[in-house]
């Protein structure tokens, strides 16, 4: 639902609200167990399972570990946050707030992006 014409004023408001959602998601969801598990613990064990038995200095594997951790962690904030919010019934806040669905999803995606960067 777009809810009307997208004027420059409206565009500014939507963008600011998307950023507010992103900021909140970073604060609340980046330390949630699913994000930590799939973003940090899972990549670490993945790294170990592939690295053990290989020759060469461990420092060569570190950039790969960092990349894979960031990839999994940042891509997990929105997928972890959305079901969590639906469960806690906080998701309905977005549906009645003056922010369109697309911008709300953008905000949630931004949270993962910023966390990854």
């Amino acid at each position, binding site marked *: *639902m*777009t*809810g*009307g014409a997208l004027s420059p004023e*409206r565009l500014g*408001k939507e963008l*600011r*609200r998307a950023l*507010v*959602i992103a900021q*909140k998601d970073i*604060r*609340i969801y980046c330390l949630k167990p699913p994000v930590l598990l799939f973003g940090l613990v899972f990549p670490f064990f993945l790294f170990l399972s592939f690295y053990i038995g290989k020759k060469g200095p461990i420092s060569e594997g570190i950039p790969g570990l960092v990349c894979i951790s960031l990839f999994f962690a940042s891509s997990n904030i929105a997928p972890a946050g959305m079901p969590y919010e639906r469960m*806690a*019934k*906080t998701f*309905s*806040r*977005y*549906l*009645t*707030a*003056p*922010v*369109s669905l697309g911008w709300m999803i953008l905000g949630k995606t931004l949270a993962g992006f910023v966390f990854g960067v």
Partner: protein
Amino acid sequence: MPGVEPMGSHAAVSVQGLVKRYGAMTAVDGISFEVEQGELFGFLGPNGAGKTTTVNILTGVSLPTSGSASIHGHDLAKDSFRAREMINVVPEVSNAYVEYTAWKNLMFTAALYGVPRGEAAHRAEELLRTFGLEDKRNTKVKGFSQGMRRKLVIAMALVNRPRVLFMDEPTTGLDVQSVITIREMIRDLHRQGVTIFLTTHNLAEANVLCERVAIVNRGKIIAVDTPENLKRAARRVQVLEVAFERLEARDEEGLSLIPGIREVAGKGDKLRLVTDELPAAISAVNRFAEERGLSIIHINTPWPSLEDVFVELTGIGGPAKGSGGR
């Protein structure tokens, strides 16, 4: 920000021929009503009547199949963004962010509604004070009691100074003290000129709070009026309340056999007799008591409650039981 635009003479909420269908099922079937600015309006109906569907359309969550709904003249199908800037919602579930403190919840909601930071901080301070949550300002919501969460969620709904506040069962699951406090808060908001759209199953609450109520059943509005007018119209449901010093089951059965008495139901330590002809029923009950040697310790002809009206209009089965809010 809500309130910047002149509202003109538009009704706060206007609904015209609203229809919502889900496949072959019609959830809302051509309803029309208006809520005036500053009115405290109750929206009542049994489960599955179409209340939630209507409120979902009025709060911009879903679109109608046909018909229109607007908030202060802003059509929810064409300009829901503007309409949603003017409202806020107190849902049935207290859905504050438990990881956030009371202060952060208020500031987040303010930001989501575009309230400038300075104004939001001022408003948040004011609301924490009003709702007696000042000392919980920096406490995470996960440590709050049900009553405190409810107060916070109401405060969050007021942070953008909404023109129309939708409240869904605001006092459900709360202790008596919290219910009294929240009802008083609702009255205060009403005195301040906030339009309140109250959805509730609690007829006693609607009776003591609302200026007008709409009763909805099977997707249609079957009555819209003040609680008192509805009760006056339902005066044809004549009720006799009687208590005997001692009553056995066969006596109760005997009462139900008295001509003109349509229904006998227990109501606490009293019996509630529904009749078409009250004077004749009183005489008959007196005669019945004399014949069986029963002594009447209480007899009353109560005005129909909103619950009686509701039961009669919606046709939901069963006798109306103990309605506190006549």
